[in-house]
């Protein structure tokens, strides 16, 4: 009686999210083409889409898999700096080709980093993933701080701590310059490409969640012991979710990096990881729609509050507190539940007739 109904309920939720993204895209495209947008906000369009990808992918770990990751920005930086090198190395190719290859390789390397971290950590129960990812974020930032990469006709040169050790020829071009970060990046990512990537990421996550694999991941989250006794290996499925999430963060990082002409490693510090976690928590853990909206609003908000310059962060904090109060208010929650129940009753009654 209800497979079509249930399938349509799940896909309805998914389509709402695609709808949100498409409306977001169309609205801003119109604003840009009619010139009704400040240049500061226009510059934020690609970062907003990237942060949405970050939020949705972190939600896969935090909301669906039930683990805490505090180093999501670390994976973003792996993708970002990989993309900078790849796009520089492909200097002659067309921009879309460079962008796509950069995103793919950035995602693969970030996924590999996630996989390597997952091997020891995901075997354990508890908050170890949070501790290790926190350390990973800091380590990767410090490694990038002393990384020098240059490209000349002979190929790619890599050195640590000492730019002269790269041994480049005189015509060589420095791509990553230690603490100064990536320099001379060609700005090849576009708002459209960022939105396409966001939709792809949403499709993958939402289809995954509504499949056999997604159910296994959620089963482990809800009750690890019961999942094991049902023949589901926790290690395998936690690994899958974490690696996938890391590679999506890498892809977001790639698009993000190729939107700027310079990019410092400090950009991807602990604060960025926490910022993404804030998107997920405020949007509602496990809710992709919430993550999208929270990421969008919280990236735009500081921009809109620029007029108040001095009080900007104060207002930002007040907004955060208000959102938390409202979403955790028992009375309000009760009202919402009653409303949701009524809606469900109506739907099921309609279905039976």
């Amino acid at each position, binding site marked *: 009686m*209800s*497979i079509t109904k*249930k399938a349509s309920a799940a896909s309805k939720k998914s389509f709402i999210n695609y709808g949100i993204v498409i409306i977001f895209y169309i609205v801003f495209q119109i604003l840009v083409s009619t010139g009704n947008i400040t240049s500061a906000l226009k510059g934020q369009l690609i970062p907003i889409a990237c942060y949405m990808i970050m939020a949705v992918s972190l939600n896969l770990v935090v909301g669906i898999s039930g683990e805490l990751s505090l180093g999501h920005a670390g994976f973003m930086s792996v993708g970002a700096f990989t993309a900078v090198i790849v796009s520089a190395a492909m200097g002659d190719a067309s921009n879309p080709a460079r962008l796509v290859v950069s995103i793919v390789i950035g995602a693969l390397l970030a996924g590999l980093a996630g996989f390597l971290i997952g091997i020891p950590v995901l075997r354990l129960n508890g908050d170890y993933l949070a501790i290790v990812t926190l350390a990973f974020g800091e380590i990767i930032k410090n490694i990038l701080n002393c990384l020098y990469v240059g490209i000349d006709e002979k190929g790619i040169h890599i050195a640590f701590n000492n730019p002269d050790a790269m041994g480049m020829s005189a015509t060589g071009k420095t791509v990553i310059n230690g603490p100064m970060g990536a320099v001379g990046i060609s700005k090849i990512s576009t708002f459209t490409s960022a939105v396409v990537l966001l939709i792809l990421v949403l*499709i*993958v996550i939402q*289809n*995954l969640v*509504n*499949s*056999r*694999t*997604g*159910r*296994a991941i*959620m*089963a482990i*989250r*809800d*009750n690890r*012991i*019961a*999942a*094991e*006794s*049902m*023949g*589901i*290996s926790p290690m395998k499925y936690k690994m*899958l979710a974490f690696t996938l999430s890391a590679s999506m963060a890498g892809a977001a990082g790639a698009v993000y990096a190729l939107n700027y002409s310079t990019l410092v490693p400090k950009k991807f510090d602990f604060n960025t990881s926490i910022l993404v976690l804030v998107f997920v928590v405020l949007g509602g853990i*496990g809710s992709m729609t919430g993550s999208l909206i929270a990421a969008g609003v919280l990236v735009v908000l500081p921009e809109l509050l620029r007029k108040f310059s001095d009080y900007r962060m104060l207002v930002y904090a007040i907004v955060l507190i208000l959102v938390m109060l409202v979403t955790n208010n028992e009375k309000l929650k009760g009202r919402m539940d009653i409303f949701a129940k009524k809606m469900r009753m109506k739907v099921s009654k309609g279905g039976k007739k």
Partner: protein
Amino acid sequence: MSKSPEVKLVNVPSPNFVPEKDLGKPLVLEAAHLGIDFGGLVAVDEFNIGIGATEICGLIGPNGAGKTTIFNLLTKVYEPTRGTIMIGGKDTHNMTPVQVNQLGIARTFQNIRLFDKLTVEENVKIGLHNHMGYHTLAGVFRLPNYWKEEKKAHERALELLDIFGMADLAGVRADSLPYGAQRRLEIVRALATGPKLLLLDEPAAGMNPSETEELMNNIRKIRDEFQIAVLLIEHDMNLVMGICESIVVLNFGRIIAKGTPSQIQGNPQVIEAYLGTHRG
């Protein structure tokens, strides 16, 4: 309460016995000299049991006797300190709970362990997980195989839920079910993994007499329909004496008696373990 007709128990190569009807079929479970220590505490010792292919066996004993510990040993939540567990003739030494489940043991839990935030149907589908033959990528890209297998799983899940008349609850979240229904869902979920032996840990806990009666009929129905063995822990003596073909009584981690329900009911050691000795 409706009672099963009492069956005759016959000795098999010692130290176990099985119902006569299961004679000649391989044992689903055979545990020998099983024991586990927690630190210095001997929780279970010298536990021997053999379960026939379609036997319903009861495991009873006072609180703290080690009944649930034995379930945890059989499903490899704990690795035994001593002894062997053979499932379908295979030694389970150093196996994980996942591997043991794939050998054909499924269980329910004393303190209900459902996947709370998922629906009833999803809970059953997780039991069907290893019987669904499509790859993760087929799920992500929604290949034809995904739709075919999901449809099959949906139908199978409803069929299984129907055993307990729960098919109309398929879309309800597991944690919003009443207590008795949660227990029944656990059984359905365990059944979905396609076991040869079903371990039920206090299936009737918190049920009223009419629910218990219905549960008894359903356990029997499951056994007959799926031709599987059932090992159950239960404090409700009406249920135990009503459906079990053989009973094992445990006290302080050791077996104190084994036999048919009538043998157990008349056993002075069992009466002593439950009621204490009569002081003259």
